[in-house]
């Protein structure tokens, strides 16, 4: 039980996917201008991440490993993730059109969000069982959401700050992310290695 808790906290805070592992930086910088879209994007990623974590785990254990097809891992995982994202996109367009409009271009980009594929690869590398995979995926997804929401909150305030012209946009966003990352390194001792 405590192992599961440590996996969750590890993915959420200590090894935060965005701030410590550098996975999912593109949406982190792209969709973090408004709090509302940040939450939506975070939820979409958490959902897709958990689903794809489960699906790729099943594939890894019942197809790739038994048949010795490990070299197809990258190819198979990315195809599965791409189809899943298509499915989520259709689902949102039908069921939650407001969110669909808000996320706009970034939904198809979840496919090229390295956090999703990164999670699938990390799970395979660490040989988690199914429950651990789900906990890890939810923790990582919420960690991504947390980073995105913190960033969006700061960026909303920063609109009124005097920032040197050359640093506006990506420059200041990256430096802000660095400072948040320093804060997150304070969580380092939380989980026994």
């Amino acid at each position, binding site marked *: 039980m405590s192992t599961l808790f440590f996996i969750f906290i590890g993915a959420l805070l200590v090894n935060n996917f965005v701030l410590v*592992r550098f996975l999912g930086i*593109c949406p982190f910088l792209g969709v973090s201008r408004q709090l509302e879209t940040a939450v939506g994007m975070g939820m979409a990623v958490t959902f897709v991440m958990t689903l794809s974590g489960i699906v790729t785990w099943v594939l890894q254990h019942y197809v790739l490993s038994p048949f010795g097809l490990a070299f*197809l891992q990258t190819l198979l995982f990315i195809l599965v993730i791409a189809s899943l994202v298509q499915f989520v996109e259709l689902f949102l367009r039908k069921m939650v059109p407001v969110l669909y409009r808000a996320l706009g271009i970034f939904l198809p980009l979840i496919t*090229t969000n390295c956090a999703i594929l*990164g999670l699938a690869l990390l799970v395979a590398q660490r040989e988690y069982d199914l429950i651990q995979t789900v906990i890890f995926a939810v923790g990582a997804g919420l960690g991504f959401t947390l980073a995105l929401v913190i960033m969006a909150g700061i960026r909303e305030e920063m609109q009124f700050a005097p920032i040197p012209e050359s640093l506006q946009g990506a420059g200041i966003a*990256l430096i802000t992310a660095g400072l948040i990352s320093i804060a997150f390194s304070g969580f380092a001792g939380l989980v026994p290695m």
Partner: protein
Amino acid sequence: MVFNLVKDFWNGVWDENTIFKLQIGMCPTLAVTTSAQNGLAMGLATTFVLVCASTLVSIVRKLVPKEVRIPVYIVIIATFVTIVDLFLKAGFPDIHAVLGIFIPLIVVNCVILARAEAFAGKMPVHRAASDAFGFGIGFMVALLVLGSIREILGMGTWFGMQVMPANFVPWSIMVLPPGAFISLGFVVGAVNLISRRSAAGSRSS
């Protein structure tokens, strides 16, 4: 025609440099640039995949139906990424261990898919290859610059050679995750400043 090729090449190296100007493909940039060598290795691997994938996409562009082009592109890219992954694992196990999951993650580097979709899928082979080569080199230069800054300030070395004076105290934060964000932020700011100056200069002359 040669002029066109040079223009396609230079577009990727500077005008639309993926890291400095467009800010795409950031994850590997931040993650593997703890030293100049790692940055260079990642840049080379990405350039190889980018050039091969763009060339092949351009070759098959008239055979692939429009509706399924994205999955086809992804399969092509993933194939070359697998080649790089296995090659590095066999030939350079040390580098493979350091770059870790970021090698298979080249497949989701948006730069590669973006070039396939925006350029290689519509252009003849020689232009696609030259465009991809430009973007690859631009990416590699960005990684090398960032890796050098972080290695020199964070460890006092460059490609493993001692370059800072002996009494220099390494800023160990530069090789930790926060250092990646902060140094890239300042590099992007500096590049903005340079392009703004040169734009202003060409207007006044």
